[in-house]
């Protein structure tokens, strides 16, 4: 089950809403309790007065003697009368009136009392107002917090996140740290910087190592090859040694080619071919094809060209040379006798296709280094080299199998 994810901010907001809920609950409780307290106060007040009045009546005071309240004699019938309260306003003052029945020794009396509760009411509304204002204040604060504070507080954090997102090893873009006073962000930055430094160092070391290897291999290989050639040239060479010498020579040559290609690949990765120019492909390719005439004559292979005059390659010429030679060489190598190789350019693409000798498509793995279907004789670096050259020049190479033809197309990255 996929883990649900929430932004940090929404989690904070959730908690705030929770606390707000608690606060509202608390406030409601306060208001309720205040009201209760006030009401109890009023009731208790009335009840105390009732006791006094009963005592006075028992002492023989006449009901008409009382002022501000009304006392009327009543019968036992009303003994179970339920006490009522009524609030009313008179001359801008709030009053509460209580009607009840009291039982004195001298009989039952109907009592109507009233009390000025203006102040109490004021207190109640004051409390309510304060709470409402505070609550609203909090809500507004939370909204503002959600809108403005995150950008501020999380700025360094978001900066770090975007740097991490865009980080590519080996690209030597230095990590710019934003000064921040948040300890967590500080340590995040530090850790990330340390980590990337170490990764870059390791990466560069490895690259250096590979570069050095590719370079160092060349001399010993040259010497082996030279000695082998000497043996081959030796007129006194024993006949039963020739097979071995032949093998050694062949494999040494293969190694030599391999190390040359690897050296080239590492030079390309080191961005040593930055002399890019716009090269019109039509005449360039025509010249190139001429130089292959020996090879094509041997197999009686023809080139059919369909080129537009405005197709250009924006690339270092050295690399273009390698790339096109590679593709043309492959096309010739893997075509049968009497075939036709098609070369076509449009404004945005270059295509070379040759008839397939095995009548089924090649594996897309042909662009991997050292991929070799068991039938081929080559070393397997050619197409990966072509692919790499395309990559660094913002080009894309695609292979497709159409009409029994192996088709390679180079177009620019955005088209």
């Amino acid at each position, binding site marked *: 089950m996929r883990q649900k994810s929430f932004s940090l901010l929404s989690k904070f907001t959730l908690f705030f809403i929770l606390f707000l809920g608690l606060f509202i609950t608390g406030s409601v409780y306060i208001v309720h309790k205040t009201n209760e307290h006030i009401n109890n106060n009023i009731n208790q007040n009335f009840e105390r007065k009732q006791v006094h009045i009963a005592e006075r009546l028992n002492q023989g005071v006449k009901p008409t003697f009382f002022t501000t309240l009304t006392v009327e004699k009543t019968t036992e019938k009303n003994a179970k009368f339920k006490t009522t309260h009524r609030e009313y306003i008179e001359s801008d003052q709030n009053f509460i009136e209580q009607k009840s029945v009291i039982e004195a020794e001298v009989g039952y009396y109907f009592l109507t009392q009233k009390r000025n509760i203006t102040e109490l009411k004021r207190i109640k509304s004051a409390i309510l107002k304060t709470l409402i204002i505070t609550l609203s204040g909090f809500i507004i604060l939370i909204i503002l917090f959600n809108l403005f504070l995150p950008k501020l507080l999380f700025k360094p954090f978001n900066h770090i996140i975007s740097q991490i997102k865009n980080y590519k090893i080996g690209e030597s873009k230095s990590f710019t740290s934003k000064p921040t006073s948040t300890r967590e962000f500080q340590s995040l930055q530090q850790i990330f910087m340390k980590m990337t430094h170490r990764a870059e160092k390791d990466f560069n070391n490895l690259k250096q190592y590979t570069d050095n290897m590719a370079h160092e291999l*060349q*001399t*010993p*290989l*040259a*010497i082996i*090859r*030279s*000695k082998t*050639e*000497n043996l*081959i*040239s030796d*007129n006194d060479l024993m006949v039963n040694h*020739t*097979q071995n*010498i*032949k093998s050694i*020579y062949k494999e040494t*040559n293969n190694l*030599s*080619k391999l190390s*040359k290609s690897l050296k*080239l690949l590492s*030079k390309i990765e080191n961005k040593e071919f930055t002399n890019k120019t716009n090269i019109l492909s039509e005449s360039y390719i025509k010249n190139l094809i001429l*130089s*292959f005439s*020996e*090879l094509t004559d*041997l197999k009686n292979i023809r080139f059919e060209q369909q080129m537009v005059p405005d197709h250009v390659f924006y690339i270092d010429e*050295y690399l273009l040379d390698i790339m096109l*030679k*590679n593709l043309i*060489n*492959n096309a*010739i*190598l893997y075509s049968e006798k009497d075939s036709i190789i098609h070369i076509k350019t449009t404004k945005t693409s270059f295509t070379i296709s040759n008839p397939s000798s095995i009548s089924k498509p090649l594996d897309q793995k042909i662009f991997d280094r050292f991929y070799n279907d068991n039938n081929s*004789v*080559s070393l397997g670096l*050619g197409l990966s080299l072509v692919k790499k050259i395309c990559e660094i020049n913002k080009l894309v190479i695609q292979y497709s199998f159409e009409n029994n033809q192996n088709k390679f197309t180079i177009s620019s990255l955005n088209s």
Partner: protein
Amino acid sequence: MKLLLIEDNKELLQDIKLFLSDNQFIVETAQSLEESFYKIGIYYYELIILDLGLPDGNGLEVIKKINQGNINSGILIVTAKDSLEDKIEGLELGADDYITKPFHNGELLARIKSIIRRKNFDGNNIIKVNDIVVDLNASEVKVNHQLLQLTKKEYDLLLFLVFNKNRVLTKESIAEHLWGDHIDNANNFDFVYNHLKNVRKKIAEANGENSIKSVYGMGYKLVEL
């Protein structure tokens, strides 16, 4: 023929020195600019083979030094495969030819002999092997006084064999000599055989001796009969 071989890699130095000595050259060596300047100051060399990547400076300084001293040595510069600038600068400064590392021994031999010949035999530059007569100035080959109609590639091939007479040349080294970089990725050397076949045919048509021998599985050699 005294040669000065300037190369900083000790193993490579010894290897090339041995090879050239086996081919009748007297070889002295230098492994740095300083050593090179010293030796050039004192001795005269027919040809200087100069590796440009020296530890204490650019090998091109040697050419400049030679120019300063008005010395008449031939200069063959050894460059890395893809340093076009070195090649151009070296040739402009006055080097006679260049060869790229790594090279076949046969290639080295051919270039050395070519430079020496060009330098020494201005008027009369002819090589004779068996009944084959090569006029280097005119780029012509005559067999039994009959001019052969050779294509450029066929001429280059024959000359390569002549310079490396009695040495077996592998198909790879011939291919690289004739076509350079194009051949890098091709594994089919039958076209070498094709050209060789044509050369043999044309020599036979001029009633020449069959001096180009195939060494099975290895390559070809021109045998001095």
